[in-house]
């Protein structure tokens, strides 16, 4: 693999990581949705580049799905939901922006430390480190944000990291297509079933409000 090709792979995966960090401290839901859309577009570019490098035309399909579904359709739908539910206010966070960013940086370091010692080829290895960092940051986002919409975005950003890892693994069969198909299914399930039902019942999509109805609370006497 030429140096330029190598650099482009790095540039794109690095871009995804930066966008993951950006996701962490966005204060308003529409901004979170936009950053997520950008991450999906960078993912599409990265997958397309891998398709070219590995000479694997089927990866183009994956790239197209990432671009159209995660880059355009889902963000568009999310914007509509946000407008209709009038939740474009600030997001409540469990931990403040500063500590979240510090934890995020620690997670990136952890990802690198975990993957570096393995004996996989250098490109795969660094790709994996980026992907793992994106996954861990997505997890962090799901933990620190209290809003159902941002939790879904955190989850989809985890999926972005998974697709990045799967396409970086040369010649991995079946799974890329299947996993992408599932990411679509999951996204639609979430919108269709949860967000609307939660709206229907509570007039809010703030998960903490749902928490109050928890089964055993108040039963411990």
């Amino acid at each position, binding site marked *: 693999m030429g140096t330029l090709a190598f650099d482009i792979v790095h540039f794109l995966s690095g871009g995804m990581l930066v966008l993951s960090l950006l996701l962490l401290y966005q204060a308003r839901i529409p901004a979170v949705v936009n950053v997520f859309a950008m991450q999906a577009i960078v993912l599409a570019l990265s997958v397309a580049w891998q398709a070219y490098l590995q000479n694997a035309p089927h990866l183009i399909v994956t790239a197209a799905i990432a671009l159209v579904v995660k880059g355009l359709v889902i963000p568009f739908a999310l914007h509509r939901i946000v407008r209709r539910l009038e939740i474009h206010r600030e997001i409540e966070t469990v931990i403040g922006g500063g500590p979240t960013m510090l934890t995020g940086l620690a997670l990136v370091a952890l990802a690198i430390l975990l993957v570096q010692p*393995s004996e996989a080829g250098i490109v795969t290895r660094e790709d994996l480190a980026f992907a793992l960092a994106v*996954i861990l940051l997505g997890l962090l986002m799901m933990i620190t944000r209290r809003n159902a919409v941002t939790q879904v975005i955190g989850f989809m950003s985890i999926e972005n*990291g998974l697709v990045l890892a799967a396409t970086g693994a040369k010649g*991995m069969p*079946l*799974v890329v297509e299947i996993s992408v198909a599932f990411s679509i*299914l*999951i996204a639609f399930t979430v919108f269709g079933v949860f967000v609307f039902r939660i709206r229907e*019942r509570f007039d809010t999509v703030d998960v903490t409000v749902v928490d109050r109805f928890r*089964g055993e609370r108040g039963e411990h006497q």
Partner: protein
Amino acid sequence: MIGPVEALLIVPAVAVPLLALITNYRLGAALNVIAAGLAFACGVALLFAERVRSELIIVDDFNIYLITLTTLVGFTTSIFSASYIAHELEVGRLTPAFLRFYHAMYQALLGAMNVALLANNIGLMWVGVEVATLSTVMMVGIYRTHEAIEAAWKYFILGSVGIGLAFFGTILVYLAGQEVLGEGLPAMSWDLLVRASPVLDARLLSLAFVFLLVGYGTKIGLAPFHAWLPDAHAEGPTPISAVLSGLLLNVALYVLLRFKMVLAANPATLNVGAIMVTLGLVSLVFAAFMLYRRRDIKRLFAYSSIEHMGIAACAFGLGGPVANFAGLLQMTAHSLTKSAIFFAVGHIAQVKGTQRIAEMGGLSATHPVLAVGFALGVIAIAGLPPFGVFAAEFTLVSSTFARAPALAVILMFGILVSFGALILRLHDIVLGEPRGPTGPVRASYVPMFVHLALVLVMGLWLPEPLVRWFNSVAALLG
């Protein structure tokens, strides 16, 4: 020619769209039972068919009995479900439109579990567990109450994160395999991976297993990752609690064990057993104490499932032929007993109109048959002889005493603590003054007593082929 393996995948695939289209709920419930019955027939036929091995599908000693067990419990639960659902319609907790969805999802769950069990491809295993998770998420939220939605949401979030991490682990295993086995399908075939394991990159495999353990461990309900489990059991329909506890936890454990076998073949990898023993014991002791604080009957048995999966994980973590044998026995006995208990609990909760233990009581006076079934189930799950759970736990504890007495003490302690809690609750519910409504119950007792009879037989006498399978799998597991 369609063999039993193909049929196991085709039956649910046909049943899902069909059930989604049928508006008559009685017909839907009947078809659900028929489809599950057909799958069970295929599961039995599989026992006598030739072993299959391709790049996608494998049938060996390990999964063959689990498939039969899964299809059996799937079948009996569908019978229980038919009578349970009829009552839910009467009291208006569910509408016929939701039942179409419910039955379709039930078949999707059974089909997905078959995929996970039959898969030789580690990616396909993952797909099976993922689809099974999604279909149960849908069913947990089906009552659309505050609690049900919160439970489903929690399950969805934790389950998907777990599944995401498991997928990352799967990618890492592929990367390790790809260097030796070449690109493409062979590097994802479980049997080829096991054979090539000694020459695979040990570091990559160890790292992969950490992700797989956290990922599938969430699905098994091991202690630090169990938060979704009690809520999902308590708020969904009871037939789903039965298949969740009885089957899905087992399937997740099975998949994790497949990966453990890959690592076991490579001595340079992480000591997987020690981690599994730790997680298993933590789950056991934690769940045992949590049992005392439960006020909700379904939550009580959900925690008991965490406890028993902990025991199984601990057994497989210890390894060796005897402990592995005990682990397999434990998986089977727990699956049958716990689903029988949930059948009883479902009917009790319907009669009493509540799941709160404080509002039940005196069941033996008002519903003697139900009380006997429930009591037998609880006695079996608490680990009293002569039931199968006792046989498993006794084998495990006695073999552990010989090898690691300290661990055996913790194991005994956990089992005894949970025993106390279960017997206390059993006393509250079955004996004493009758409380709450005492109306008649329209229950199908057959599935419950069939399961209990099987567990009893397991405790007294194991059929020869089963012993042979368990022994060969126990040896394979290392």
